[in-house]
């Protein structure tokens, strides 16, 4: 992203609402929070400057979310003090937080799809038994906010019809409507295209200019560098560093987060593509309603190369993986693995695809990749439960199962190394490592990977990427789907862009340019040209109303 990094200094004193003192909007003093024996937050002190963007970064489990939950009234701290606007405040519920002017934009939006924007924003503040009056009050306030911040949201649009970026702006609008002048955004860019991210950051800059205090929780270093004024780094429940953004850089922040040196740049040899392992011809898929999810997909996957699929989530990538993995049958076209041809007539059968040498690391590891209620040892055999190595006669050999899990955990450094622990009790990164270990253990000919590092710590990302590269070099044909453009660009040898169920572009990774890919991802979307247009239209409409 080539966002202009705002100068750090001149915002703290930007005049906004009536009486703004240049001091702290929020002060946290020695916050402590334990969950049983684990310490989630340890002696945390922070000063959030008014009218500035403060970034809080840290790996999963570093305690960021706990801290924000304390600030927003989901949890209460065991010790310590919170000062809002210089006064100590006892935040016991979210109502207290909202009353103190704190607003939260959650990672997963909390919106009713079948309601309009206006109805969503009124929810919980209907203003009396009859909606009519409350609605007109809300509409007036909404138009005022629109005029002030220019979010470009039509109050009468159905939320379910809005693109993700716009839904996020509805969340922001909701917080502003409730009088928030301190806005917490939790991993806000995970679901956005680069263009939508830019738009979000422009809005955040406007909010900042009007005096809103913003707390940005993220693990994306470049975003921290692009938009924040201050940054706090958290590790293992404690604040390990505080830097004015202008005085630091991505490399330093990454090292502070992980606590050791990390390579941000992936090192890999040029690919040596071999024979075609998987070939899709005119592959198509219709969903239950008859809508095309996949449309004339043509694809060659060669041994020893990584093909990356870039795209905004929900443009057919998930469906493509599911079809190739045998979970769903194609509606038209065919694909070939080795000398086996799969057509709409052949019954879909993930077990058969495994026999053909396809391994699949699914996007949704909680629902597909493992059974959260199973022990790690049980999850480590998912999909391979009939293999002779796990059996003694008719019965399962629990000792062999546990031993095999131990070996996988050892090789892929899954922590903690307890084969009997429930899968749900491992962190996201360790769950992912266990799944990857399982799928790579059989030395598959073809590897399908969905979101290899979603919700995974920097340290684990490095490891997962190097494992994928190692298997590529060993001759595995790998297809990687990721919404993280960075990841696709650094892993893949060849990048395909998917949009509206079609492949809309192909670029060699060496020549790929983020902006160009972003345009392919967004513009070629069906109706993508107008993706921005409805917003402008709605702006005009909403301004025409008064």
């Amino acid at each position, binding site marked *: 992203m080539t966002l202009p990094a705002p100068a750090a200094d001149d915002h703290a004193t930007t005049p906004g609402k009536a009486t703004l003192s240049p001091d702290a909007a929020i002060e946290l003093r020695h916050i402590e929070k*334990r*969950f*049983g*024996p684990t310490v989630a937050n340890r002696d945390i002190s922070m000063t959030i400057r008014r009218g500035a963007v403060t970034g809080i970064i840290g790996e999963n489990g570093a305690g960021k979310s706990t801290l924000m939950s304390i600030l927003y009234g*989901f*949890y209460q701290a065991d010790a310590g003090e919170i000062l809002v606007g210089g006064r100590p405040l006892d935040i016991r519920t979210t109502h207290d937080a909202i009353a103190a002017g704190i607003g939260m934009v959650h990672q997963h939006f909390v919106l009713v799809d079948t309601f309009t924007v206006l109805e969503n924003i009124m929810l919980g503040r209907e203003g009396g038994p009859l909606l009519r009056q409350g609605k007109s009050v809300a509409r007036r306030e909404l138009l005022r906010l629109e005029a002030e911040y220019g979010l470009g949201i039509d109050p009468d649009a159905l939320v379910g019809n809005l693109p993700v970026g716009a839904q996020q702006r509805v969340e922001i609008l909701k917080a502003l409507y409730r009088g928030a002048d301190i806005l917490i955004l939790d991993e806000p860019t995970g679901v956005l295209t680069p263009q939508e991210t830019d738009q979000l950051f422009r809005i955040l800059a406007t909010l900042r200019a009007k005096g809103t205090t913003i707390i940005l929780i993220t693990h994306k270093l470049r975003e921290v560098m692009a938009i924040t004024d201050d940054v706090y780094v958290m590790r293992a429940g404690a604040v390990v560093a505080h830097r004015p953004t202008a005085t630091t850089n991505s490399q330093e922040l990454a090292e502070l987060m992980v606590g050791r040196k990390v390579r941000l740049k992936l090192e890999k040899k040029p690919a040596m593509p071999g024979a075609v392992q998987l070939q899709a011809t005119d592959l198509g898929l219709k969903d239950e309603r008859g809508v095309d999810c996949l449309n004339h997909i043509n694809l060659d996957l060669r041994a020893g190369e990584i093909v990356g699929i870039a795209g905004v989530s929900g443009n057919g990538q998930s469906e493509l993986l599911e079809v190739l*993995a*045998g*979970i769903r049958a194609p509606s038209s076209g065919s694909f070939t693995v080795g000398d086996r041809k799969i057509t709409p007539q052949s019954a879909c*059968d*993930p*077990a*058969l695809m*495994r026999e053909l040498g396809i391994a*699949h690391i*699914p996007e*949704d590891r909680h*629902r*597909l*990749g*493992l*059974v*959260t*209620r*199973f022990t790690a040892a*049980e999850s480590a*055999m*998912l*999909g391979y*439960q*009939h293999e002779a190595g*796990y*059996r003694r006669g*008719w*019965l*399962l050999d*629990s000792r062999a199962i546990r031993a095999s899990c131990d070996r996988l955990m050892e090789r892929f450094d899954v922590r903690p190394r307890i084969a009997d622990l429930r899968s749900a009790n491992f962190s996201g990164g360790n769950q992912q490592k266990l799944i990857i270990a399982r799928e790579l253990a059989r030395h598959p000919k073809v590897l399908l990977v969905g979101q290899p590092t979603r919700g995974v710590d920097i340290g684990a990302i490095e490891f997962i990427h190097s494992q994928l590269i190692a298997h590529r070099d060993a001759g595995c044909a790998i297809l990687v789907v990721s919404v993280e453009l960075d990841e696709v660009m650094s892993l893949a040898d060849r990048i395909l862009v998917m949009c509206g169920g079609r492949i809309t572009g192909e670029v060699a990774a060496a020549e790929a340019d983020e902006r160009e890919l972003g345009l392919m991802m967004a513009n070629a979307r069906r109706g993508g040209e107008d993706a921005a247009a409805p917003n402008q239209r709605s702006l005009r409409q909403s301004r025409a109303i008064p």
Partner: protein
Amino acid sequence: MSGRSVTLPRWVDIAAIPLTNVLLAFLVAGLIVLAIGENPLEATRIMISGALGSGEGIGYTLYYTTNYIFTGLAVAFAFHAGLFNIGGEGQAYIGGLGVTLVLLAFDHSLPFAVLLPLAVLAAMLFGALWVLIPAYLQAYRGSHIVITTIMFNFLASALMVYLVVNVLTPVGATEPATRDFTAESAIPFVHEILGRFGIAMDSTPLNLSILLALIACLFVWLYLWHTPWGYELRAFGHSEKAAIYAGVKTRRIILITLCISGALAGLVGVNEIMGVQHRLILNFTAGYGFAGIAVALMGRNHPVGIVLASLLFGVLSQGGAELSFENPAITRDMTVVIQGLVILFSGALVHLTRPWFERLFAFILSRRNALPQEA
């Protein structure tokens, strides 16, 4: 939010909480007994001594227990696949029909050693067949198994009345029932066997079917936790998507699981028809199929838990019968109330006491953590 902060030790989860729930149920039942002007402590004493205080009481208790084990296992087995089979009543009834047909046809011609496995197989086969249509509808048409199996209970009831009254009752009989089977075809009573070893025991309906119930427990335990098919079944029960990902044929799993569940329920017919009644009578299932739901809930869907829960329900049944016999003011309906309360507290309200235990343990843990710092 307090739920996230502590994980309870296993013994609390599987022992302390269920016991507390049962005690609460008895406490409330005691209040009701008090309300109708009777002494709850005396009632409890009669119940317990009636169920466990004599050889006769124990025999009856274990006889009831046998039936509860079969139906509890049936519910629990399907439940591990996320399927709620509440048709145990009908499957048990039809299982009894299977036993009856085998005995009617062969009790004069075949020796017991052949008859028994044949009857057991017939009970399982008929129980499985009775759930086959609901299972098919669930697997291939998405009709909900709860609706279809409960409907099939009524069908079973109607079918059995028709068959017994119009087909199976001998001409000239005074009540609707089949002829008595030969004495040689009966599963031996426990008091007979003990008598042979010189141990005197009052005659009770308890027969060797209880061994069959324990074998069924072992089978369920092995199948669910020690075979690849049980693994697939449980994977399907926890996460259908994960099961599909793992290559599990989900339709086949639904069919097989429900058929085995029906077969387990059908075994009630072996205990009742071949072990106790020695002829087919109407309504011999007496609600065991429905009670199986509560037994499975209480036993946490594990064979060991189901044996324990079945014992409790056996005690309630036998002790309740004894209680209404000894104290006419407390009618048989009262024991149904107590059973209902146990089901309510250990089934529907199973999480009622959990937060208290969690708070207790959070407190203990925080004390334990605080100590080293003070020292």
